């Protein structure tokens, strides 16, 4: 005998199949521009969006912020669809990273929705190697303006692709951790994963470059 619950489950299963076909058709027609998925990580759920040119966002939490979404929609239109096939390769690299088996990322990142200054700061950040740290001032200097360390800090706080663009490796000149979009505990854990124990308040002054 078929119960109402069986019927509901069956409808949900049919709905899922219909959704998969819809996404495939939307992609064929060029309607889908950005695919997203949510993955679990040791730092909690991460919302990952991948556009035509690469990773657009890794957001701490299961849902993107309005600002994040607005930025993507302004650049790529409203064609965001849940699409694990787009986010899976990123998720895989993140898993390897969290397991200590990956020191740099191979996935392409797309910084085109950002300002030129943000792009330069994040570009300089991306060159800070696994296990190293740099100061906001140093990143600002690398980006062409050593006096802009406060602006560099802001650009890093707004980094849409944390972990892959390793803004957690950027600390304050006095050796304290500075800020982090995912929270200081997340920053501390990422740095610990890459290089050992991090003192609660950061490092003493001489350790930071």
């Amino acid at each position, binding site marked *: 005998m078929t119960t109402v619950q069986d*019927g509901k489950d069956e*409808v949900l299963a*049919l709905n899922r199949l219909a959704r998969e076909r*819809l996404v495939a058709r939307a992609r064929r*027609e060029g309607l889908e521009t950005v695919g997203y998925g949510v993955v679990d990580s040791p730092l909690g759920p991460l919302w990952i969006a991948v556009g035509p040119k690469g990773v657009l966002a890794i957001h701490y939490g299961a849902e993107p912020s309005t600002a994040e*979404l607005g930025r993507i929609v302004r650049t790529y*239109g409203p064609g965001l*669809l*849940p699409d694990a096939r787009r986010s899976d390769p990123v998720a895989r690299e993140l898993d390897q990273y969290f397991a200590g088996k990956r020191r740099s990322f191979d996935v392409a990142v797309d910084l085109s929705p950002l300002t030129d200054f943000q792009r330069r700061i994040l570009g300089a950040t991306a060159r800070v190697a696994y296990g190293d740290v740099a100061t906001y001032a140093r990143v600002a200097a690398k980006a062409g303006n050593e006096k802009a360390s406060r602006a560099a800090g802001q650009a890093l706080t707004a980094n849409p692709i944390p972990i892959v663009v390793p803004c957690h490796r950027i600390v304050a000149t006095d050796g304290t951790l500075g800020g982090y979009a995912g929270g200081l505990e997340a920053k501390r854990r990422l740095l610990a994963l890459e290089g050992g124990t991090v003192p609660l308040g950061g490092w003493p002054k001489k350790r930071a470059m």
Partner: protein
Amino acid sequence: MTDALTFGDLLERHEREIFAYALRLTGDRDDADDVYQETFLAAFRGWPPPRRGQERAWLYRIATNKVIDRARRAKRLVRMNDLRLAAPERDGVSMADLTMAMKVLPEGQRAAFVLRKLQGLEYDEVARALECSEDAARSRVAEAMKKVREKMR
């Protein structure tokens, strides 16, 4: 989220009810699948939704038109083999009512009946979905109910 409604949001929010609606109007999983896909693809192509806050009625309007278009094209017997999957969850409407509605109501009236009695839309939303006045929506639903109840006797 005023400047950032995405197609994915709309899909997440409404796909289940639109799929159930398609199933309740067609009674067939393959037809429901087609209606669901055609509805959301049309919404995607026609982006953005015409009015903020009325996206739900917009989707129902597209879906209803897709069902009516199909019925006009196909002119075949309703199969109804999958109607049990979309069993009504609301008081006052039984599976037998829905089956009878499938048999005796023309598409437009059936849509009004299902929108109000099963999908739970308010009359203003039913009206927007069916592109008619609220009064017309009320009388269509009442007429449909009357027909179904008469046949059930």
